[in-house]
């Protein structure tokens, strides 16, 4: 039986043209730029200086504060400088520039590909390893994983949900990772189950990845506590709250965390990174990136080190087509448009999407015809057109009362609007303002 979440949702064209294309490596460039802020939370403090030699896996940025994640060198070589560089945030922020010399790894990292199933570490030790390895949520939100795996006091996780949904159109990095690293992901699941002390794990996979559903259904026979749940294809099923609703039928209340219904959600990419960190001592220095787009010559899934320029990845996929009008880091629904392709791959880069000019330009906005389609597709059950108006007229108290802070910024409203209104643009703005007002009130 296919399950899905109960409120709203859309079904954009899937366009997964890079599905089934094996993950390929990319040659190391002459220089990498590793941003010191690759996660939600405080940027890292650099612990190297100009002229230092580093190896693959050397700590170069130390986490500052609770919500933060370590950053390691993804190459071996010499630190050129620590300077500002344009990253996917659209701003110039601190980054470590490293000149690549050879490919020498830290001795502690186990580079063998042999599957290592047994894990004798305690819950605390696992969390410590995850924290040291600088692992963040790799579905795109880049929230530090050890924070998510540390439930607030008084709450008890009951179920681990694994996000193998990949509901964004075009992207296939998670899909391909599931196909190639299923065993490692399953070991990763058992490790996280141990860390959280939960007895049940469910892998949610959308029905457009039938091969992955088959593979995992076969493999979980070895793991009685892990189940596979096929899901109806529906965007934004990869949203944490939507996925919990789809799999458990429980809805996380406004403003509450998933743990309030006993659920912890982790992305398959994150679980693979956890496996490598705990079993192989390997920090998070590389990830799978889908390079795709309508006119891309060779759409592919690339295993890229953090800090490699997106330009190199695009060249590997056959170069940037003449007609490209927009370059998006991530998927077309929630990804970020970039002002330049000279931007380093980071821990959260799930894909690079090249959109032709003709499809990239937005159409002129018309008056709202009150068709209410945005309301029917909103997965959070909000009233997007009302929230946009309230933001435009700066009626923050009403916006708050209409739950603007519940918005998950999935973009279903803007996607659907027949009048081409930039609903999400304004709601995002209003959400930021209202969140600021709420914070100010608490202090």
């Amino acid at each position: 039986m296919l399950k899905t979440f109960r409120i709203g949702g859309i079904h954009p064209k899937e366009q997964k043209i890079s599905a089934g294309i094996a993950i390929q490596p990319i040659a190391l460039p002459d220089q990498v730029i590793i941003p010191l802020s690759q996660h939600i939370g405080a940027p890292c403090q650099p612990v190297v200086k100009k002229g230092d030699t580093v190896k693959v896996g050397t700590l170069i940025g130390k986490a500052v504060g609770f919500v933060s994640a370590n950053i390691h060198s993804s190459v071996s070589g010499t630190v050129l400088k620590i300077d500002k560089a344009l990253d996917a945030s659209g701003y110039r922020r601190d980054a470590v520039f490293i000149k690549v010399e050879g490919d020498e790894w830290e001795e502690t990292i186990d580079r063998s590909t042999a599957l290592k199933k047994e894990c004798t570490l305690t819950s605390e030790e696992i969390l410590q390893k995850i924290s040291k390895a600088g692992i963040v949520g790799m579905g795109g939100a880049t929230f530090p994983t050890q924070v998510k795996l540390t439930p607030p006091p008084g709450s008890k996780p009951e179920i681990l949900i694994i996000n193998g949904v990949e509901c964004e159109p075009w992207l296939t990095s998670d899909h391909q990772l599931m196909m190639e690293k299923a065993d490692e992901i399953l070991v990763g699941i058992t490790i996280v189950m141990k860390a959280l002390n939960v007895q049940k794990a469910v892998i949610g996979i959308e029905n457009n990845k039938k091969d992955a559903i088959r593979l995992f259904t076969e493999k979980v026979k070895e793991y009685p506590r892990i189940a596979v749940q096929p899901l109806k294809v529906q965007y934004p099923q990869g949203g944490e709250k939507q996925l919990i609703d789809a799999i458990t039928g429980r809805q996380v209340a406004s403003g509450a965390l998933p743990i309030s219904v006993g659920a912890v959600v982790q992305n398959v990419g994150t679980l693979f990174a956890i496996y490598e960190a705990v079993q192989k001592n390997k920090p998070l220095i590389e990830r799978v990136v889908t390079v795709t787009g309508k006119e891309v010559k060779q759409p592919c899934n690339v295993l890229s080190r953090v800090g490699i320029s997106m330009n190199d990845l695009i060249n590997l996929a056959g170069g940037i087509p003449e007609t490209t009008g927009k370059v998006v880091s991530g998927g077309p629904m929630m990804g970020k448009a970039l002002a330049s392709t000279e931007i380093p791959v980071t821990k959260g880069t799930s894909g690079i999407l090249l959109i032709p000019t003709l499809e990239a330009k937005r159409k002129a906005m018309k008056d709202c015809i009150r068709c209410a389609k945005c309301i029917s597709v909103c997965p959070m059950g909000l009233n997007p057109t009302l929230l946009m108006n309230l933001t435009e007229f700066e009626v923050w108290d009403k916006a708050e009362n209409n739950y603007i802070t519940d918005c998950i910024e999935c973009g279903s409203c803007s996607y659907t609007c027949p009048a081409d209104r930039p609903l999400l643009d304004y709601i995002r703005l209003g959400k930021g303002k209202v969140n600021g007002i709420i914070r100010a009130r608490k202090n």
Partner: protein
Amino acid sequence: MAQKLIVSPSPHVHSGDTIQKNMYNVLIALIPAFLVALYVFRLEAFIITACAVLFCVGFEYLIVKYILKKTPSVTDGSAIITGVLLAFNVPSNLPLWILAIGCLFAIGVVKLSFGGLGNNIFNPAIAGRIFLLISFPAQMTTWPVAATAVDAVSSATVLGNLQYNPDALPSLQAMFLGIEGGSLGEMSALALLLGLVYMLWKKTITWHIPVSILATVALFTGILYLFNPQPLYHPLIHLFSGGLMLGAIFMATDYVTSPMTKKGMLIYGAGIGIITVAIRLWGAYPEGVSFAILLMNALTPLINTYSSPKRFGEIVKNG
């Protein structure tokens, strides 16, 4: 790569849905009813519909261009719909000059003076029809004899007969298929239902408004019929006669003037149903759908304010 990159906030794709597509879907859904009208009234139906469309589009173009001095947007199809719906709501022998006045009122006063598509409070076609009904009661209620069934249909409508002459009612089947007298587009319930199915399939509208109107009418008259089984209270007669189908499917579902949440739509539909039956049974006019829709149009902003959509997480734990 020659040109500069375009940067905008997400999402970077669009469904491709447009105002035009929705409007043209409504027009396509109106085709079956139009064909029935052509069959029943022949050339007259065509002339009235064509002229109403021409007047509406023409007035919109002229007013927007020369009085409001903006770029006319008649291609969005909403003026065409207003024209067709207004034509469907008048007798086929209405003098064209009266029709022109109705179109001018609908487009100029009801739609554009409020700011055009999206900003009007009342459905232009409904308001135009009521304007004509009040201004030209004689012409608006003299129904021509249908060209197809000369002997079967008198010049009064079913609803007119219902109150004053219950013996002259046509059969239910005839009413369903649409060969009784009446306004152009109200003829065949079947044809209108076909349009509804098309619009539901195309997701132009949701089921909430038409179903709640029809269900309320059926329920309300049904209860009365239980206590007093006369043709005056027969639910099926009420469902298939007059402008109920046309109103419930095409006029009450107008995006701009109907509520936006599912809950609101149901309240709105129920309101229209109750007011329609009340006017039909106890009012001075034999038909009440237009008045009911107009009244509920006025209540729409209020309904919108007090009916919020069902939020995620309102049901906290039920799994």
